[in-house]
């Protein structure tokens, strides 16, 4: 099952500079585990030690923010597209 994952500039150190990588998994959690097996450390930038999605990043499945879907348990299907972006905020 192939899912394209678009990686933002600040995380490309984990992908050897690649803008997009391929992964597989039935859920976002499974996909991130799969990616981390080849791009070690990437998962830790997206998921906290408590296993929640890090508030510093936005993750989209087919352009929909996963916070409005099922979070890390969002289901994925072959051909889905995942995009990771740094969140921008301040005070």
């Amino acid at each position, binding site marked *: 099952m192939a899912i394209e994952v678009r990686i933002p500039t600040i995380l490309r150190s984990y992908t050897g500079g690649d803008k997009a990588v391929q992964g597989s998994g039935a859920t976002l959690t499974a996909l991130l585990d799969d990616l981390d097996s080849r791009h070690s450390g990437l998962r830790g930038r997206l998921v906290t030690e408590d296993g929640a999605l890090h508030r*510093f990043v936005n993750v*989209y499945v087919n352009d929909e923010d996963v916070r409005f879907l099922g979070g890390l348990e969002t289901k994925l299907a072959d051909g889905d597209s995942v995009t990771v*972006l*740094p*969140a921008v*905020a*301040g*005070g």
Partner: protein
Amino acid sequence: MLELPQSMVDRVVEHARRDHPDECCGVVAGRAGHATRLFEMQNAERSPTGFVFDSGEWLTVYRDIDDADEDLLVVYHSHTMTEAYPSRTDVRWAVNTPGTSWLLVSTRSDELELRSYRIEDGVITEEELRIAGG
């Protein structure tokens, strides 16, 4: 040093005054350090003490900038009760935008306060803001 055309500076100030007392936010895209386009962003928090880019809008704008082979030159936002200086929250979030200028405008008084900073590894450095004609 950050150089912006007068027209963009005017838009940032106008945006900040329009959204006051809530904070406004937005970005300027650039190519090779030259400002090309300004995008007003919605503050998803609609708050007088903070801002968050709306995630859907941010995806659209980020793609637009990336597809045009432009870079994120500036993140701008307003402070509505305090000076135009990065808050602790700003410093915490700036790790997400390395190499980007943080432009702050304060709307706490009628007097224009507009300053630009680099925030790298938690260190705030003010940079010269040069306003060009046009």
